[in-house]
């Protein structure tokens, strides 16, 4: 396993479409639920424990068995009740594949898989293991929304990065837990849900004016 390769895969500058998404934060900011750094911290912890765990587990599983991507994708559909979130996840999966194809030789994986499925398959193609795929997924869950927080709330970027540093051990823990499921049947993979993220995403998709795609 190459640590530098993992950093390439997990880099926020990877041209994989992430910059246009707030990870559900814009909807919560607008609803007045997230106003300051403490709120962002709570939001990220909640995200990590729910959609972050699911994403990390599916990334780990897809890394372990890239040939089963379609089945895993179905499992993610079942865990993503909001059509807007499904669409956002598939759009980011497609963009990630585009970047992945330029970097590594990818096995067949369809045109628009969910983002965690794509991430796992990329990790596999890059010679990384399920644990690394899970770390990249968990880390991405927090960093995308954190950079959106800097833009949406005009927070001090140093304070937000200090928060990310504090969350790093939690990312590792979630990733470790996720990776332990890498061999589970799809139906047995984690299915933690975050109803407010689902509801927020559905409202957000109807707005006429918004800064982020999701």
């Amino acid at each position, binding site marked *: 396993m190459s640590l530098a390769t993992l950093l390439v895969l997990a880099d926020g500058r990877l041209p994989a479409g992430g910059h246009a998404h707030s990870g559900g934060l814009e909807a919560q900011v607008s609803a007045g639920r997230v106003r300051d750094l403490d709120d962002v911290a709570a939001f990220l912890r909640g995200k990590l424990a729910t959609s972050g765990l699911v994403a990390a587990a599916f990334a780990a599983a897809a890394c372990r068995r890239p040939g089963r991507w379609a089945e895993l994708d179905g499992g993610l559909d079942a865990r993503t009740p909001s059509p807007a979130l499904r669409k956002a996840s598939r759009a980011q999966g497609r963009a990630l594949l*585009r970047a992945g194809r330029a970097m590594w*030789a990818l096995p067949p994986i369809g045109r628009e898989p969910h983002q965690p499925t794509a991430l796992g398959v990329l990790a596999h193609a890059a010679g990384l293991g399920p644990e690394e795929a899970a770390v990249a997924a968990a880390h991405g869950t927090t960093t995308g929304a954190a950079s959106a927080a800097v833009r949406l709330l005009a927070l001090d970027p140093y304070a937000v990065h200090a928060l990310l540093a504090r969350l790093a051990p939690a990312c590792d823990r979630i990733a470790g837990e996720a990776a332990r499921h890498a061999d589970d049947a799809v139906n047995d993979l984690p299915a933690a849900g975050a109803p407010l993220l689902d509801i927020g995403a559905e409202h957000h998709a109807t707005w006429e004016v918004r800064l982020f795609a999701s």
Partner: protein
Amino acid sequence: MHPDHATPAGGAWPRPSENYVPHAHGPDEPPHTHPDPGVDPHQALAAGPRALRVGIGGPVGSGKTALVAALCRALGEELRLAVVTNDIYTTEDADFLLRNGVLPAERIRAVETGCCPHTAIRDDISANLDAVEDLEATLGPLDLVLVESGGDNLTATFSKGLIDRQIFVVDVAGGDKVPRKGGPGVTAADLLVINKTDLAPLVGADLAVMDRDAKERRGELPTVFLSLVEDRAATPVAEWIRILVGVRGPAG
């Protein structure tokens, strides 16, 4: 030798050379894979040359959408044409084109850019590439795709991974200093359009000064003056594009 170094059967991608020898692997090296030099990592392009992609950038309100509308009017009949818009936070530009009936809805896609219009056309072009790809998938081969960037500043330029040529639109109402100020859009765009010349007397802008400064900044690169309220078909720009498309030959 790794199994992934084996020559693929009938790989169409040219190998680096006939004598290409993959690097050796010692027995103690961790297992790893390489992109196969015999396999093109990109998705196959549609048969035949793809559409010419022209990026249209420039500051907020300089007339980018008005130019796109004019080009649709001028070229819509003779070229298979589609448009991608990049608004900062609405689908205003796409809606304008629809309302004005210059192009049917299926030929227009709006990309969302998450507060960063320049990121979407330069650093992370994935959403724009997906939009172009979707247009070509649903409409069949195209001759020309216009990509309008969200209004930004003088430093915003398009990545060559997204477009073939770029037009930078500034307007005289921004002051006759704009060409002198330069920036990558003004100095390096394949065509500089100085729009709203009809407003020059009203804002006291000296077109001769703008012309001289543009020449100084741009060397041989062309600059055109335009008033889209007077020339609703953007004649010099349409002509410039016609030549480019002609040079490339018809798509598909």
